[in-house]
Structures are given as structure tokens and as C-alpha cells.
């Protein structure tokens, strides 16, 4: 650390919001942390896993992670679970009853909304859960507040005996800033205090807890009025005053540095009377909240005049480039905006990695006729893109199987000859797909299931799952045997195949055979994610230009390492024009999976070093 840095930022560290949440949990003496990976929340548990004072785990899904932390809280320990926004949909069954029981050890649910959909299937506002489940919502605006509010969340949870929702967004999780941490605390050791009238939520007990929950709502609303996290920041230009929270606060201060701001850290229950008083000191009140008009609706119901989603968008971030033109309508200020990007350029969509084992699957699926392909959440959702276009649905974790079952049962006469296929990854299958498979076998469905086992949660960066045989800490544990699991779930042994997805002929044979079968089949692939240490690179490939005929079959693999050398138009003997595309391989990027060799008729794809043998891809993991 330089002298200048020390002067300016004594003990400040430069960390992301996710790391700040993890550090705060550690410093608050959190004992148990659990999560299922999901962007943008994944790193919270990865950072926590490095702290020996915290038990941490990758749970099977978000509902399980919440229940693990509920148990820890009831056992008297502080606990934190982290998830992306859609994860809380999965966990909500537990949440909606846990709120009646309340917390014993501080219980914090860190939920990360993907405002702007950088990598999610929808954009939803997790602040709703605060209203729905009657729990307080904290909204940090940056990494420093992610730290301090996580610390605060544990004590708030214990003070009101309530789970606390820490609402993060991508712009909190993945933004680094300078953070000062506070002294760590040591909590008093507690124990599991048997109390069935509180912990056993049968109707007779639950009914009695509801008035207590309502009373807690009232007390929290009073607490919110005076809470230091709800902060008034005076400003000279009182034409517009802002009530705002989270990342939107930073954008508001950036855009309107002279405007008065009421910044809500404890945004639910909202400090209605504080806001009413604030409104009287400004000409116009604007509620700047990202996504849904939640606070706006509540304030309007309280009789406070304001503008909100009538001028601000309900989708995406409220960045300065969004706020400035929207507010110019009210202030009459002039406003010019630059285009965000040059939009006549080619797109560069995310695509499967070089040598990804899923590419062989999608090459096959693109070449099999009469299919309806039900997809799922993971890297393999990219199979919906070019060149494969081999995915027809994608909804939620595990939905591929159950949606396929519905397509099978609901198909009309016109679709009688269609082959219904479900594609799902190993971790997603374990998260929420198994139930769908059992539904198919139990109810005699006719679906061919492709279980793409790459032994990792690929899309979030190759995290471990029960299919990896490794836990969050990289230590050995049980490894699920998918063949046995599928058998146990009712699939006939003869209808389960394990295939190497780099061996296209084997893959085609298995797929063509199984789609003809009546009843469920499972084809399990067995090659690891290329992002993980399990993947073994092979010698790189190159194209023998003398042998390449320009047929472009290999481009249908979709590998980013296969590039176009030149295009030519030739006249065929029948007089028709034909486009030829001669290729080359970016050998520095190629890792020699050899998939493309299967597609090359003239054997033009050869090892980069002609002397090196083309090694078979390792079959066993």
C-alpha cells in the first residue's frame, strides 16, 4: 500500500459486493452458509468457503440451501444463504412458513436480482418477497454497504426474530469498490430450544403465529422510520427530490448531485412518514426504484403525490443515461444522449466454448428430423443459437423433463410422428430435474432424455455438484451414479446409454435408436466441462488446405476455433452456383477434442504436428 493510499483509505480493501457480503458474514460470526450457484450471486459462497470459521456448502438447490440455513438458525447459529432471484422462487415454499417461526440465530437471505438480464431467463423484483413473506428488505448501494448492511442484517434478524432479505443486484454483486471492514464479533453460544408450538407449523400452531407476524410488521415499520439506514441527504436544487434505493441511488447521485435525496437502506417496511415529510420539502417527488413500482404504489396508497414509473422504465437499470432524458421531461433541461453501441455491427452472442462436449450433442440434434426439443437452464441453453438452432423451449430449472412430458401428452394429431426430446445438464437434473423424470416414468411418458453430464455447474464457471464427486471446497465426496439413479427412478436398464459426446457415430446411433422406442430413454454423456481441471487437452488440430474441399460441414459443429480461410463461388456441372467455404483452425485455441474430424469427408483436419498421433479422447473420468 502506498503512502497516498494509506492517507486516503486507511485499511480500505478493493472488493466486489459479493466478497463484501462474504466477509461481513464471517465477521458477524455466521456459522453456516449455503447456496446453489447462480449469476450474479455465485461468488458469495466461493469467498465464504475460504473462511474456516464458517461451515459452507453447495446445496442441491435453493430450497435446500434455505432449509439448511433455517435449521442452523433454529440450532442457534447465525446463518446465510445466497441465491439468484429465480432461486428464491424455488426456496419460497420454505420461506413462506419460516416467516411464521422467525429466526433464532440471525438468518440472512442474500438474493441477487439480475436487473438488465445479463444472464438470466427473466427479470424479477425480489423486493416483492419482503411484502409477501412479511420480512424486512435491506438494499445496499455498493460494496461498502454490502458489507455494513450484511453485518446489520444479522443483528436486525435477531432483534425482531425474523429472516432478513438482503436484496442485491448485478451492479452490487459484480462492482468492486473500496471497503472498510469493522471489528469482528463473537456471538453467544445458543442451543436448539425445543418449542413445538413455534417450530411445528401445523394449522393450530401456525394460526397462532400469524398475529405475532402482523405485530412484528408494525414494529418493523416503526423501526424503519428512525432507522439510520434510511438517510436524508440535503440538496440545493429542490425542484426534484428523490426517494431511491440500491444501485439506483448511486445513479441518481451521479446524475443529480444537487438534488435532495432520501436514500432507503431498509426499504421495506418503508418509512412512510419520513418520506411524507421529505416530500413536503421538494417541488416534485420522484421514486427511483429499479424494476417494479413497489414503493411507488405504497406511497400513492398513503396519499403522497409523486412520479415514478410514469416517466421511468420498468425494465433494466436506472443508469444516468436512462435517468437524465427521463427527468428532462420534468425539469425542462436539455439533454443529449450518445448511442450506447454501434448497432449495425455483427452480434457476438455467447456461444459454447472451444471443445465443449455439448457441441457434439447439438450437431446431432440439428441433424435429427421431426423433433421437439425441450431445453433447460445451463450452458446447453446456448444450443438454441447458431449454428444448431436445436432447442425449442427453455423455462426454468428442471423444466425440460416435465415440459417434455406435457408436450408428449398434449400433442395433437399433427405432432404424432414427432420425437419429443429433453436436454438437461447433470447439476440441473439434480437440482430439480429428477422429479420430472420420475413423473415421466410413473405416468408412462414417451420422452428421450439427453442427460449432459459434464460433472460441473458449467454456466456459472465450473462449480462442483454431486455429479463432480467434489464439494464446495474441492474435497472428495460421493459422486452420483446417474445410471443407477435413472434406474431407481424407473427407467428400464436397456433404455439407459452412456456415450462419449465426441464420438458422433455412436451418439447418432443411440439417439436414432432411442427416439424410436416407446417409453422413456436416457442417453448420458460422459465428458467433462472444458473449464474444469478434469478436462485434458489433446494436441491441437489444423486444416490441410490441399485437402479441404470447401464443403463447410465442420462449421456446423459450431466450434469457435474453426475459422473461414476464404469463400469461393463455383459453377457446378448442372450449371448451378455453389458457395464453397474453405476453413482453417485457430490451432492456438484448439484443444484437440477431435469432434470436427468426424464431420470432415476428405480427412482434411489433421494434427497440427503431423508427427503427433491423434489421441483418442479420454473416456473415463
Amino acid at each position, binding site marked *: *500500500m*502506498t503512502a*497516498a*493510499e494509506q492517507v*486516503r483509505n486507511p485499511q480500505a480493501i*478493493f472488493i466486489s459486493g459479493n466478497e463484501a457480503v462474504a466477509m461481513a458474514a464471517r465477521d458477524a460470526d455466521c456459522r453456516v452458509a449455503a447456496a446453489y450457484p447462480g*449469476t*450474479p450471486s455465485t461468488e458469495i459462497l466461493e469467498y465464504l468457503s475460504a473462511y474456516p470459521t464458517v461451515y459452507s456448502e453447495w446445496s442441491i438447490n435453493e430450497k435446500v440451501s434455505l432449509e439448511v440455513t433455517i435449521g442452523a438458525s433454529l440450532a442457534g447459529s447465525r446463518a446465510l444463504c445466497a441465491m439468484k432471484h429465480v432461486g428464491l422462487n424455488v426456496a419460497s415454499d420454505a420461506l413462506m412458513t419460516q416467516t411464521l417461526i422467525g429466526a433464532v440465530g440471525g438468518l440472512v437471505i442474500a438474493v441477487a436480482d439480475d436487473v438488465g438480464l*445479463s*444472464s438470466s431467463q427473466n427479470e424479477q423484483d425480489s423486493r416483492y418477497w419482503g411484502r409477501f413473506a412479511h420480512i424486512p428488505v435491506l438494499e445496499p448501494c*455498493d460494496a461498502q454497504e454490502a458489507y455494513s448492511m450484511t453485518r446489520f442484517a444479522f443483528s436486525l434478524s435477531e432483534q425482531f426474530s425474523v429472516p432478513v432479505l438482503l436484496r442485491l443486484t*448485478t*451492479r452490487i454483486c*459484480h*462492482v*468492486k*469498490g*473500496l471497503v472498510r471492514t469493522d471489528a469482528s464479533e463473537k456471538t453467544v453460544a445458543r442451543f436448539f430450544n425445543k418449542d413445538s408450538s413455534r417450530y411445528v407449523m401445523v394449522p393450530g400452531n401456525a394460526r397462532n403465529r400469524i398475529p405475532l407476524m402482523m405485530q412484528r410488521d408494525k414494529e418493523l415499520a416503526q423501526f424503519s422510520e428512525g432507522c439510520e439506514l434510511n438517510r436524508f441527504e440535503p440538496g440545493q436544487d429542490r425542484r426534484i427530490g428523490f426517494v431511491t434505493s440500491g*444501485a439506483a441511488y*448511486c*445513479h441518481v*447521485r451521479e*446524475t443529480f*448531485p444537487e438534488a435532495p435525496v432520501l436514500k432507503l437502506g431498509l426499504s421495506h417496511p418503508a418509512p412512510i412518514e419520513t418520506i411524507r415529510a421529505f416530500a413536503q420539502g421538494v417541488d416534485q417527488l420522484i421514486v427511483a426504484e429499479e424494476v417494479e413500482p413497489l414503493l411507488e404504489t405504497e406511497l400513492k396508497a398513503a396519499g403522497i403525490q409523486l412520479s415514478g414509473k410514469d416517466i421511468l422504465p420498468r425494465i433494466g*437499470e436506472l*443508469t*444516468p*443515461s436512462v435517468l437524465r432524458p427521463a427527468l428532462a421531461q420534468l425539469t425542462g433541461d436539455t439533454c*443529449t*444522449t*450518445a*448511442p*450506447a*453501441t*454501434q448497432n449495425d*455491427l*455483427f*452480434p*457476438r*452472442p*455467447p*456461444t*459454447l*466454448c472451444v471443445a465443449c462436449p455439448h457441441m457434439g450433442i447439438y450437431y446431432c440434434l440439428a441433424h435429427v428430423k421431426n423433433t421437439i426439443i425441450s431445453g433447460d437452464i445451463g450452458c446447453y441453453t*446456448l444450443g438454441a443459437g*447458431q*449454428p444448431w438452432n436445436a432447442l425449442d423451449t427453455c423455462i426454468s430449472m428442471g423444466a425440460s423433463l416435465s415440459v417434455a412430458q406435457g408436450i408428449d401428452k398434449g400433442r395433437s394429431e399433427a405432432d404424432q410422428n414427432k420425437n419429443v426430446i429433453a436436454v438437461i445438464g447433470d447439476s440441473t437434473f439434480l437440482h430439480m430435474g429428477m422429479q420430472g423424470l420420475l413423473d415421466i416414468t410413473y405416468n408412462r411418458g414417451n420422452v428421450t432424455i439427453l442427460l449432459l453430464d459434464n460433472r460441473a455447474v458449467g454456466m*456459472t*464457471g465450473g462449480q462442483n455438484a454431486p455429479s463432480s464427486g467434489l464439494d464446495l471446497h474441492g474435497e472428495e465426496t460421493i459422486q452420483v451414479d446417474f445410471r443407477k439413479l435413472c434406474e431407481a427412478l424407473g427407467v428400464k436398464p436397456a433404455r439407459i446409454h452412456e456415450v462419449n459426446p465426441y464420438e458422433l457415430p455412436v451418439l447418432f446411433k443411440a439417439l436414432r435408436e432411442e427416439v424410436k422406442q416407446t417409453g422413456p430413454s436416457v442417453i448420458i454423456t460422459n465428458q467433462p466441462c472444458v*473449464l474444469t481441471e478434469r478436462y485434458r487437452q489433446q494436441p491441437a488440430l489444423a486444416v490441410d488446405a490441399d485437402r479441404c474441399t470447401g464443403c463447410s460441414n465442420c*462449421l456446423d459443429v459450431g*466450434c*469457435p476455433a*474453426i*475459422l*473461414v480461410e476464404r469463400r469461393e463461388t463455383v459453377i457446378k456441372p448442372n450449371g448451378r452456383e455453389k*458457395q464453397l*467455404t474453405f*476453413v482453417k483452425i485457430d490451432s*492456438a485455441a484448439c484443444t484437440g477434442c477431435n469432434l470436427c474430424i468426424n464431420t470432415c469427408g476428405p480427412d482434411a483436419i489433421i494434427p497440427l504436428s503431423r508427427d503427433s498421433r491423434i489421441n483418442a479422447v479420454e473416456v473415463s473420468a
Partner: protein
Amino acid sequence: MSYVTNILVAGIGGQGVMTAADIIAQAAIRAGHDVKKTEVAGMAQRGGVVTSHVRFGEHVYSPSITPGHADLLLAFEPAEALRWAGHLRTGAAALVNTFAQTPPVVSLGLFEYPDAPLEQLARYPISVSSLNAGDMAIGMGDRRLVNSLMLGAAARHLPFDSGLLKQALLDRFANKGGKMLTLNEQAFDAGYREPGKI
């Protein structure tokens, strides 16, 4: 409000865009600034467009650079330079790696890669410098050195001592051992020497 410097780093997943932005941010902290830096992760390793925003000054609120307000664009790929040039303010600088990378949608013939992207950049009221960091890195034995080459070239454009940036880079590779450290230092120096004004 005091001036906030905006650095936009743009490239493709897997090129080290976020690492480069992180190293610039670390150097800015050492220069005594408040700093915010965005990361866009998740799909970032899948060959998609990746940008990282670094903002530093007396006090930084928003982590996002408003289009039209970037002071420096560090583009790891020429077409990406074109994609993000509109983010620069008049008179700003763009530093471009001329090593082109075409995505599968271009190889498949569905879209065209722009002709002479650097010449198209001349339409913008900015100053453009370029270097073929891709070829230079491969020449030095490791394509991952693009990152350090670009940082070396960027050092001339940043409002603090280039030594701070170099030290932040070296600290980053300190635990990787002697050879990687030496190579990255050489790459930084080579990038710094590259004039490349067009």
C-alpha cells in the same frame, strides 16, 4: 463535483478484459483515487462481448460510464473498438488491439465482419492508437500476454504515473512465479514502447 476519469475496457470473453480493468483500478487506488469497477461475469467466458468500466476520482457514485463520457477505450479487438467507440467523449483516446477475432456467426456467413474497422473509427472525434498485441503476444510465446501488452500501451494514456500501473500488474503476477512474471513485465514494456499512432 470533481472530475471522474472513465476507462472502458472492451473485448471478448476469455481475453482478460476483467483482469486488465482490475489492474487499472488497483493502480488508480495507489494514485490516491476513489475507484469503482464493474464486472460483467456469467456468460463472459462464452465468447460473448465483455466490457468492464473503471471510474476513478475524488468520489465515484455510479459504477457505469454514461455513453459519450468515456476518456479512454481499451479495445482488445478491432470490431469491438468500433462497437464501443460511441461511448467516448470528443477528444478521447482509443487504444486498439488490431488482432481480429471472428465469431462463429461470421464464419457461418450469417453476418459480415466490418472492412477496415480502424478506418471506420476515424469517423469519430477521437484519437486512435493501435498495436497488434495478438501477434506480439504469440511472438512472445503466450497469447495471454495480450493483456499486459495492452496495459503497457494504456500506461501512456492514464492520468497517473505509468510505474503505478506496472507495479499493479507485477503484484498481480507475483505469485505465479519467475517466468510468468518476467514475461508479463516484458510484455508491459513492449506495449509501452509501441507508439502505434494512426
